[in-house]
């Protein structure tokens, strides 16, 4: 790059000033190399859960006039899912071969959401020994369908029904 400067008194005296771009290009090259290494090319998402930290309970607990609707519970077991709001009304969703039947589970969750559109809570009770991915799939499905609140529970594998066998973690999850 050159800059032409007109000078002198009436005479066309030109001075060619060369701007040294070499250090600038060196700096840019180093910066690009560093940023390409440091940049994260994969988008990372997160599913957020807020635990309720066990504080001192309130002195007076207000009793609702009508009994609250029990939350929707999804029990993730080694042999399949169990879904329901009450023990006696729960539905078993056995595995389809080696994999969990998420099509059926999604159908049942959507049906429940249509029946109880105001309810926001889902209890996901995952047995020990079940891969973490299966819990995340149920959590993701519940958020997609429209349940923004989640209570995570877990414990030793048990054949007992979720309402009886669920062992919520301290303070929930």
């Amino acid at each position, binding site marked *: *790059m*050159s800059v032409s400067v007109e000078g002198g008194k009436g005479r066309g005296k030109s001075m060619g000033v060369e701007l040294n*771009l070499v250090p*600038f*290009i060196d700096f*840019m*090259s180093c*910066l*690009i190399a560093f*940023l*390409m290494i*440091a*940049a*994260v*090319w*994969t*988008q*990372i*998402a*997160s*599913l*957020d*859960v*807020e*635990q*309720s*930290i*066990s*504080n001192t309970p309130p002195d007076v607990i207000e009793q609702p006039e009508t009994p609250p609707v029990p939350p929707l519970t999804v029990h*993730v077991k080694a042999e399949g899912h169990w879904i329901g709001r009450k023990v006696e009304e729960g539905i078993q969703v056995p595995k389809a071969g080696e994999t969990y039947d998420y099509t059926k589970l999604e159908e049942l969750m959507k049906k429940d959401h249509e029946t109880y559109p105001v309810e926001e*809570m889902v209890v996901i009770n*995952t*047995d*020990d*020994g*079940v*891969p*973490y*991915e*299966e*819990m*995340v*799939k149920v*959590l*993701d499905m519940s*958020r*997609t369908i429209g349940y*923004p*609140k*989640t*209570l*995570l529970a*877990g*414990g030793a594998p048990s054949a007992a029904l979720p309402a009886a066998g669920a062992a919520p*973690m*301290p*303070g*929930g*999850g």
Partner: protein
Amino acid sequence: MSAIITPGRRPAYAPIGRLRSSPLSGGKKSGFASLNLTAMVDMFTILVIFLIQMFNTSGEVTLSDKIQVPKSLSGALLEEPGTVIMLDDDGSMLLDSETIPASEMGTELDIVIPGMSRLLKERREFDLDIKKRRGEPADPTQPYDGVIIIQADIKTDFRQVRRVLASANDAGWAKIKFVTIPMKAIDPNAPKTEAAGG
């Protein structure tokens, strides 16, 4: 019948032509050739701006090659920095690249991992102490606002995740984020969904 037009000299040939006809060189070729760097500098500038934007979007979390995280449809873009806990499928755990001593892992029957709970309590107290010195004391009626980012392998036994959650709860950490790979591109400007409670 159209006339054949001979194109003139292209601008790129001009310096070479000038070199050949230079009165100073006395007919000899000079070794100097001016290179137009403007386009290259422009490209570098745009590239740097683009890379700086990429650098800023994903916060402090980077994915480990050893850990295959699950995929999600409803996950929000992870921007908020926090304490990263990595869980491998073989049961090993790292808290911000810090290994938890085997002596403090507890037994399989323990719900809380003593070492993790201790480290998280130390971090929480350290953070609260800094905020207090800055003149921003924590509200005792509100839970601690620190974030735990769990980056676990898909094959990890849920028991390990449960123990981590219990340890976090024991140390007073409320906000948990499970790292996932989005199945569709997330718009960073999209309105965020309501934070989960429970």
